[in-house]
């Protein structure tokens, strides 16, 4: 994991539009009482791409992620996941189908250590039943250790060895975000939803985080949907960007196209970057 791999050393990825479709959102609308959080939005996410979702505050980005992983149920529209139209589903079903995410307001398990938090990401992959767990010695322990190995890889990868046994509640914000990423990675997801992973980080840390994201994307082939307010990050990392404003989609395209789009500049960027 520590090998020096940069994006340039990999073959140039195929254009996003040619890749296989992973998830499609069709005409989704969601409202809470009177508030329309999402209005008739359609877009798709293709395998292996980094898809950014941007937009002003309250545009409905987080709500969009919530719809994708089953936490909110849209009033209208459908979601197609790997070619199958999904009905109303519970979040844990989404998780078992390979959708993992991080949260805007860190949602770590505060009473647990970093290690346990990341191990918790592997819950779905572990299967020893209650009675083996009671005994511990034998299968349960073996399974635990096997997964511990995987988790230690992630810990190495994210360079958080030093805080392995620290309860996460006491960690500074930036590290919490990193642990959260680790937890999502531990799920070995097909689609990783990141909600403002770099908020509250300084440049150095953002660079680290970018590297993690790129590495995950290229090494594990994980598809990533990313919400971020730092335009530098979005423009550099993403293959395609969808822009929301007041719950509506106002643009969708490559970073360059989006950046040049006047509607986007007016609604979001303020000045062109």
């Amino acid at each position, binding site marked *: 994991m*520590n*090998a*020096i*791999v*940069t*994006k*340039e050393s990999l073959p140039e990825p195929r254009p996003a539009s040619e890749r296989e479709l992973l998830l499609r959102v069709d005409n989704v609308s969601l409202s*809470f009482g009177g*508030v329309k959080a999402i209005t008739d939005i359609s877009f798709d996410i293709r395998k292996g791409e980094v898809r950014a979702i941007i*937009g*002003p*505050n*309250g*545009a409905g*980005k*987080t*709500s969009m992620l919530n719809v994708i992983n089953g936490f909110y149920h849209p009033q209208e529209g459908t979601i197609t996941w790997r070619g199958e139209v999904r009905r109303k589903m519970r979040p844990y079903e989404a998780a078992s189908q390979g959708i993992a995410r991080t949260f*805007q*307001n*860190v949602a770590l398990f505060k009473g647990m250590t970093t290690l346990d938090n990341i191990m918790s990401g592997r819950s779905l992959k572990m299967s020893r039943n209650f009675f083996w767990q009671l005994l511990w010695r034998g299968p349960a322990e073996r399974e635990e250790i096997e997964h511990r190995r995987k988790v230690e890889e992630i810990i190495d990868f994210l360079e958080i060895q030093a805080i392995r046994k620290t309860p996460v509640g*006491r*960690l*500074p*914000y*930036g*590290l919490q975000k990193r642990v959260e990423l680790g937890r999502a990675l531990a799920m070995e997801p097909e689609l990783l939803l990141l909600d*403002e992973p770099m*908020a*509250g*980080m*300084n*440049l*150095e*840390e*953002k*660079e*680290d985080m*970018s*590297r993690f994201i*790129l590495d995950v994307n290229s090494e594990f082939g994980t598809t990533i949907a990313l919400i971020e*307010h*730092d*335009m*530098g*990050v979005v423009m*550099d*990392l993403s293959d395609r960007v969808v822009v929301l404003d007041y719950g509506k989609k106002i643009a969708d395209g490559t970073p360059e196209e989006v950046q040049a789009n006047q509607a986007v500049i007016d609604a*979001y*960027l*303020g*000045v062109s*970057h």
Partner: protein
Amino acid sequence: MTGASRSDPRSASPEMALEQAKPMSTLELDRTGDKTSITEAQDTILTVNNIEVIYDHVILVLKGVSLTVPRGGIVALLGANGAGKTTTLKAVSNLLGAERGEVTKGKIVFEGEEVQALSPNDLVRRGCIQVMEGRHCFGHLSIEENLLTGAYTRKDGAAAIKSDLEMVYTYFPRLRERRNSQAGYTSGGEQQMCAIGRALMSRPKMILLDEPSMGLAPQLVEEIFEIVKQLNDNEGVSFLLAEQNTNVALRYATYGYILEAGRIVLDGDAKALRDNEDVKEFYLGVGGEGRRSFRNVKHYKRRKRWLS
């Protein structure tokens, strides 16, 4: 608040903050120790003198931090995650008690009086309010009620409060739209605006801003800092801000401190810091040929080890 009272060279006037283009000839790298001489001076609103903070009786987080905020100044506190920025701000606003932390050494002087022993609400009454990191809105209260709690300590009547409410809504039109929603259901950015607006409602002399830009859309970040500057210019409000977005922070601040692992490792005029090579490299991300791409970050560790 007149220009004359700000004779100290460190407390740059707002005009100076605007003259960003002009290069600064000397780089000031004061060490914290030398500054005790000015702590009692009239035109500093806040002095933190060599404080040590311990959490849970055993975890030592701040190991002797000193800083001053001139009256009418905007001072930025920079540093990596876990450096202790939030802790410093909470030490000033006396919110540490609620986290089982305590200031074990040093003193904190606000407007010429030691304030370590005061309760947070005394401090707010005296005009020093904190915007906490991570929003901390009152989830069950509507946005408007949240804003009104900010005016809890005020005694100047409903009309004044009402007009300030209007002011906040003009700053953040988005809040006006969502004024009757429960804050718990609003988006992250909306909550951030609400937290900042709430602090403004107390008409403070000094605001401790912890990561104001976090989770805000780019143009809003600019707007927030514009608001900071406006308040600073028009009302003479002083600011101590902990901020990760060094770029913006140093553009608006007059003075900056860099905090690493519980110690101040570098401080100086904002302009001087901006020109410092290390700061450029590690905080601003401008190498010799302009902005680096996030795609091209190198994989080996490049952490600055500060000599302190």
